[in-house]
């Protein structure tokens, strides 16, 4: 059987009073395509479908969406990984406002990222050459800097769904730790002070949805635990 039944979330706020699911039959000719290929084939049938995509190889982070209930990047998710009973259900990332079809408003997500001041801060005099790091210091950034901000993790996190204005979310917290762990950054105290309240970091309940969906195999829960350790050793 090569015809795949695809159910796609549709919503155009200018013409639809409510979102609805639209059914498509896609002939995959038995190939194990990526979900993004299927979306392109659907777009050939109905050009009004809106979704984001750019690099189609898991680098740009544009096509994060919910595929058969699990967040991921459509371009690097093979049908064989997600399709059950020859059915594929595609929805926008949960918890963020839908602008149209599979396109969500990432404003809150970026706002939390910006709040973490994701850039090196160092108030000591700049040396004549670069600020050097030992290989060991550089190793601490592995598993942190690779984030592509696709929002798959934060939008799979119930704590982020309920308090997206106050809880930074796994993506933002991974980046917070990326700069806390950097030997060249010395804004550590200010960064920790920003995270000490009951919402920004501590609303994480460690359910690890973020780890389970991250298309880059990163571990925000571990980074959150490390920040908690830093806060604790700072305050006891």
């Amino acid at each position, binding site marked *: 059987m090569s015809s795949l039944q695809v159910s796609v979330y549709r919503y155009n706020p200018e013409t639809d009073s409510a979102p609805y699911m639209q059914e498509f039959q896609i002939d995959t000719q038995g190939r194990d395509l990526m979900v993004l290929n299927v979306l392109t084939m659907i777009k050939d049938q109905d050009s009004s479908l809106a979704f984001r995509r750019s690099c189609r190889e898991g680098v740009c982070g544009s096509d994060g969406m919910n595929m058969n209930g699990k967040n991921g990047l459509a371009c690097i998710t093979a049908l064989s990984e997600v399709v059950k009973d020859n059915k594929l259900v595609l929805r926008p990332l949960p918890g963020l406002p839908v602008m149209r079809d599979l396109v969500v408003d990432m404003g809150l997500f970026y706002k939390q990222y910006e709040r973490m001041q994701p850039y090196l801060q160092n108030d000591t005099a700049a040396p004549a050459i670069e600020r050097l790091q030992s290989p060991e210091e550089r190793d601490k950034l592995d598993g942190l800097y690779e984030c592509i901000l696709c929002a798959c993790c934060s939008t799979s996190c119930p704590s982020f769904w*309920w308090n997206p204005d106050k809880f930074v979310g796994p993506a933002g917290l991974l980046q917070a730790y990326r700069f806390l762990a950097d030997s060249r950054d010395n804004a550590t105290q200010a960064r920790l002070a920003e995270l*000490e*309240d009951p919402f*920004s*970091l*501590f*609303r994480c309940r460690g359910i690890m949805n973020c780890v389970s969906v991250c298309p880059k195999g990163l571990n925000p829960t571990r980074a959150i635990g490390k920040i*908690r350790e830093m806060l604790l050793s700072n305050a006891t």
Partner: protein
Amino acid sequence: MVTNITNLGRSGLSDWLIQRVSALVLAVYALFLVAYLLFHPNLDYVTWSGLFAQTWMRIFSLLAFISMAAHAWVGLWTISTDYLKHTGARFGFQAVVILAIFVFLVWGVQVLWGA
């Protein structure tokens, strides 16, 4: 900067630490009670009230009650700020919870040291 005035420790870090430490106290207390019941299969009222007549057991029990009160407040405060989006409903819920915790705590002290 996220502000808050109704959580227990005024800081996420202290709430988190209180939650972990109180959980540990409650676990030890529960294990002790279960073990005590297992070692006294024919438990009667005299033995049971004799246990609670000793000062160390009263201190241990009061510690467990206070841990329970703190644990419940941190947990229920968190739930209320997750799910109750209407300020009036959230504040009302928090008021009822804190009143209940206060009543149960005072009542617990009375049970331990009264009669």
